[in-house]
């Protein structure tokens, strides 16, 4: 008897029910399930009685690549039901897919994602035909809300259609030929008793074709595709290449993680909703969703009146009827709630109309709706489950580094010492994974902190073991797991540049350089989305400093910081050109310009922006009359420091005159910007060597002196604070030289130092002068001046 093939969508309650019914009807002796074949020896472990969701976590590392992936299982996964019900019906159950480390799975982090990228065209056509927004809606409409009779036939037709014109890639073909080898072996073993094969619907038409009667590969013979059979008659599980480490094990999983796969890695959305569909049916799930959303909103003090509730329910019912759904679908309830409760214009389309995830700044009603659909269930492993390798790895590392001193132990670590640095990294990795037990009580707080010692204290805490098992879902080794956790955290802090600096420094402390491409990518895109120049400038300055000079953390010249530097420079240039006026000097923005200059000058090999492009942008900002004044000054300085080689820089004396026409405040702010970037414009011209950097051009200090002397008194007094602020960028020695130059100009002999040392605060003197002025004006107005 040939095999019975069930093509399913992963995480579909309708498909899960179909599997359950088929097993009950068919009573198969063999149930073959799409899943990692290397787990076959440990299926008992999988069926111990865990609280779902759990996942088979697989990791792989060799010299070329490192990969981690998950095969998540929840109560309503067809694969899970096949395992459970198949075993209960007395069948032999087996996973038949390639191990997760196999190159066929490169780029995949979720084994049970939809194969959607490959059949997009077909689903798009179907969506247009049925006039629905997305393939998820289409799926609900065709399968989840329809009655169960005829489901298998409809699934067959659907998958035949989508597979019909989709191009399977090499990875799919390898997996399908391997799975087909298992099916043939099972048919051989079963003789004339039934065999049930449960796989993703995309593979099912191919498997059927590969194992059909016309295909080669006689009974008991070797497989046509070269998959050897072992002594037990089943295909061998390929072993990873010699030098590589690979493994699979069980970890607890959560609906939140299941819902968090983005883009093409995602499977069915809204696990919380479909859990309810599986347990109680679509009507109950719809009812409950409505109730939960309203409860959540009311708990957040968002007004939801009874009239709103009635409107939401009637809208949902109307939509169910209009769309021809025999029972309410997820999208009917969501649309009903959205229509009735949202009384604003939205910034983003409703997330369920496409494949989009929730965007920052989404409407609170939408946020609660998505959260209610996602659910908050967290799986728990049976206590008898072997601990994931992370637990052993951590224990071994702590022992190896003499960090297992028990509770109350204190460690003082000198980061310049290699062994201590390694200890520090291990402890930081535990920290970012959220494993309680060790607390850092002292140590460097940021990338330019001159502190090089750390103090850690051990404390005995409950829940440490559980936290480690949970963290086991992130990776097999401590470093891997920390990289995954940091990647996730970076994604969460996206667009908050100040917290980005923290995430970056954590990556430095954990020694993550060159460790994880995902972390690199996430940091890079996070930097590119940041919108505040000030904090981003800090990130750039710190990263650049560590990249150039770090001797402690071992991060110098590393790719991690390189990515950040390139992204931040590019983004800052973009942000700076778009900055618009605010009065007063924004020092953090000036520091950002300085950071950009340093990056362009000292790390050009990292940047995708050329020096010429950066200089061009600087010139445009300097010439832009709408840009903040101090930024224009800074851009002028930036342009000069970048353009020196080409000699195309503008004349500062001329620029100063232009700015001065706009007012003394503006002059002070502009100078502050210029001096932040290019102090030698002034000091160079008054240097000891006489010829001056200005060459034949008029010295900037002379021009300034002339301008300031020509100011009317009140303009001088009102502009004084800004002017003084600008000169604070000079260290005392340079200020001294400027003072000397001023004396020289006036032909006065005297100590320039005494000119800088006044008996009182010059601003106070300025205020006194202003007061005197106003008194004498008042006297003059009332003709009360003392006559001589």
């Amino acid at each position, binding site marked *: 008897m040939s095999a019975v093939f069930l093509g399913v969508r992963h995480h579909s309650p309708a498909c899960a029910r179909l599997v359950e019914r088929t097993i009950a009807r068919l009573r198969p002796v063999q149930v073959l399930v799409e899943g990692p074949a290397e787990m076959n020896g440990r299926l008992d472990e999988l069926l111990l009685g865990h609280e779902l969701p759990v996942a088979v976590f697989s990791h792989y590392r060799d010299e070329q690549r490192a990969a981690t992936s998950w095969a998540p299982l929840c109560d309503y996964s067809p694969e899970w039901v096949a395992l459970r019900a198949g075993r209960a019906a007395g069948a032999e159950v087996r996973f038949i897919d390639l191990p997760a480390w196999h190159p066929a799975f490169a780029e995949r982090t979720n084994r049970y994602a939809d194969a959607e990228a490959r059949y997009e065209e077909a689903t798009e056509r179907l969506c247009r035909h049925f006039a629905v927004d997305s393939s998820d809606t289409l799926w609900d409409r065709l399968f989840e809300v329809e009655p169960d009779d005829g489901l298998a036939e409809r699934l067959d037709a659907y998958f035949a259609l989508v597979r019909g014109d989709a191009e399977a890639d090499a990875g799919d073909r390898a997996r399908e030929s391997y799975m087909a080898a298992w099916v043939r072996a099972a048919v051989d073993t079963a003789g004339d008793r039934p065999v049930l094969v449960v796989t993703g619907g995309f593979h099912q038409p191919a498997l059927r074709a590969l194992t059909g009667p016309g295909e080669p590969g006689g009974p008991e013979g070797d497989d046509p595709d070269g998959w050897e059979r072992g002594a037990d008659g089943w295909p061998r599980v390929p072993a990873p290449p010699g030098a590589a480490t690979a493994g699979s094990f069980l970890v607890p999983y959560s609906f939140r993680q299941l819902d968090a796969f983005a883009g093409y890695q995602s499977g069915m959305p809204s696990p919380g909703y479909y859990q309810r569909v599986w347990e109680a049916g679509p009507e109950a799930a719809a009812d409950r969703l409505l109730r939960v959303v309203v409860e959540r909103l009311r708990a957040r003090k968002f007004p939801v009146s009874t009239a709103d509730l009635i409107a939401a329910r009637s809208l949902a019912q109307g939509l169910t009827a209009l769309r021809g759904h025999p029972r309410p679908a997820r999208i009917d309830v969501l649309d009903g709630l959205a229509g009735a409760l949202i009384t604003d214009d939205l910034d983003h389309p409703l997330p369920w109309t496409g494949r989009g995830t929730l965007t920052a700044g989404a409407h609170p009603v939408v946020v609660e709706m998505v959260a209610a659909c996602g659910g908050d269930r967290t799986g728990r492993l049976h206590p008898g489950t072997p601990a994931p390798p992370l637990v052993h790895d951590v224990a071994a590392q702590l022992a190896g580094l003499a960090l297992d001193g028990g509770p109350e132990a204190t460690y003082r670590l000198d980061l310049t010492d290699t062994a201590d640095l390694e200890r520090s990294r291990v402890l930081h990795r535990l920290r970012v994974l959220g494993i309680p037990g060790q607390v850092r009580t002292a140590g460097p707080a940021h990338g330019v902190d001159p502190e090089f010692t750390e103090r850690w204290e051990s404390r005995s805490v409950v829940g440490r073991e559980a936290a480690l098992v949970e963290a086991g879902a992130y990776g097999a080794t401590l470093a891997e797991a920390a990289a995954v956790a940091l990647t996730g955290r970076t994604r969460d802090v996206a667009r908050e540049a100040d917290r980005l600096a923290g995430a970056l420094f954590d990556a430095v402390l954990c020694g993550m350089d060159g460790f994880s491409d995902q972390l690199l990518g996430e940091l890079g895109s996070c930097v590119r*989305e940041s*919108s505040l120049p000030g904090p981003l400038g800090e990130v750039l300055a710190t990263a650049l400093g560590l990249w150039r000079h770090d001797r402690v953390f071992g991060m110098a010249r590393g790719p991690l910081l390189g990515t950040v530097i390139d992204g931040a420079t590019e983004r800052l240039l973009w942000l700076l050109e778009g900055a618009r006026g605010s009065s007063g000097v924004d020092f953090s923005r000036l520091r950002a310009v300085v950071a950009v200059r340093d990056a362009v000058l000292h790390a050009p090999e990292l940047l995708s922006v050329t020096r010429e492009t950066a200089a061009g*942008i600087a010139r445009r900002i300097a010439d*832009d009359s709408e840009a903040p004044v101090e930024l224009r000054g800074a851009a002028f300085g930036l342009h000069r420091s970048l353009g020196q080689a080409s000699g195309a820089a503008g004349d500062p004396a001329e620029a100063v005159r232009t700015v001065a026409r706009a007012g003394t405040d503006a002059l002070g702010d502009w100078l502050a910007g210029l001096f932040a970037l290019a102090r030698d414009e002034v000091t160079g011209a008054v240097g000891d060597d006489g010829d001056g950097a200005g060459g034949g051009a008029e010295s900037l200090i002379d021009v300034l002196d002339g301008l300031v002397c020509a100011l009317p008194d009140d303009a001088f007094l009102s502009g004084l604070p800004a002017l003084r602020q600008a000169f604070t960028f000079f260290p005392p020695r340079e200020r001294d030289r400027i003072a000397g130059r001023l004396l020289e100009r006036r032909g006065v002999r005297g100590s320039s130092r005494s000119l800088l040392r006044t008996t009182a605060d010059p601003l106070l003197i300025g205020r006194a002068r202003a007061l005197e002025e106003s008194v004498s004006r008042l006297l003059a107005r009332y003709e009360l001046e003392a006559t001589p």
Partner: protein
Amino acid sequence: MTTRNEPRAGAPAGDAAPVQRPPAEVRYAEELAALRADDRDPRPPGWELSLRAARRFVIGDAETGISRKFVGNPSLVDRALVTLATSRGLMLVGEPGTAKSLLSELIAAAVSGDSTLTVQGGAATTEDQIKYGWNYALLVAEGPSARSLVPAPMLRGMAEGRLVRFEEITRCPLEVQDSLLSLLSERVVAIPELTGPDGMVFARQGFNVIATANTRDRGVNEMSAALKRRFNFETVFPIPDLDTELALVEAEVTTLLRRSGVEPPPDRDVLEVLVGTFRELRAGAGGKGGSGAGPDRPSAVMSTAEAVSVAHAVGVRGWFLRGEPGSAADVVACLAGTAAKDSPEDLARLRRYLEQQVPRRRGPHWKALHDARHLLAD
């Protein structure tokens, strides 16, 4: 029906010039008639079509030859239609140029067979233009009577059981907006000047209101909570998908160019660059998926309609100046004049986009666009 459709066919009977833009129920009279003839589904009271037929009319149905008229999400149309069948009004909000008015016209044509009961909101809109006014000659001669009453669209919609469109509702003064309150909740208008049965006009089945509001002039935030509560809000978004938008722009521009006497059809690559530029500027270029109203977003409207008008200008420019289809350089020149209107900030944004973002795109036309950046007038 065919007689009403004649002017559009370009064969005017007698000396009447063809109507520039007949209302939707005239333009699509045949489709509506066909849908009505086949309509087997239940109709809400007072509706000319069932919900499903109305939906097919708006989003199209290739099998029965119904054209696709609105390219947004089908679920939006579902929600809009179901809302209108309940007791709440429908409020379409969104950026200018996102086809809100078109959608409201199509729905009114499908549901009531008439999209002309329209109030155009504005600063000078008064209650007379919404509910009723008087023929003052008759009023003076005969006193208030049903004869001297001049019903405005709301009153007519209520009396006849039709959908009434209220365009740009947020541009009306708040007091005028609030005059809709009792009308929407009690579904009755009292005319105190008249006595007897004429003094109360009750809404018949089929009456409801579709309002539109754009988020640029004066958003919906100022609208009173009481009025908001009587509407279900639907935000209409720009076309989400590049190919759809490109196809729409190409179709529209080809028609426009032919009408302007331009022979060559628009160059598809140039259109792609143009539409791509519009989409990136609209999204706030430089940060993917940034917040809705970031500082990088131009204040000018970067709608599909605007893209069509720029593409039209590009084609006209290329043909009449040089006798060839418009090029990427024409796009820059036209963007400066049309899209960036007269706002120096927008011009700066556009320049910054051309300088910093465009060079990262690959392709000869993007390069040409970058090379032509000096054409942005100062």
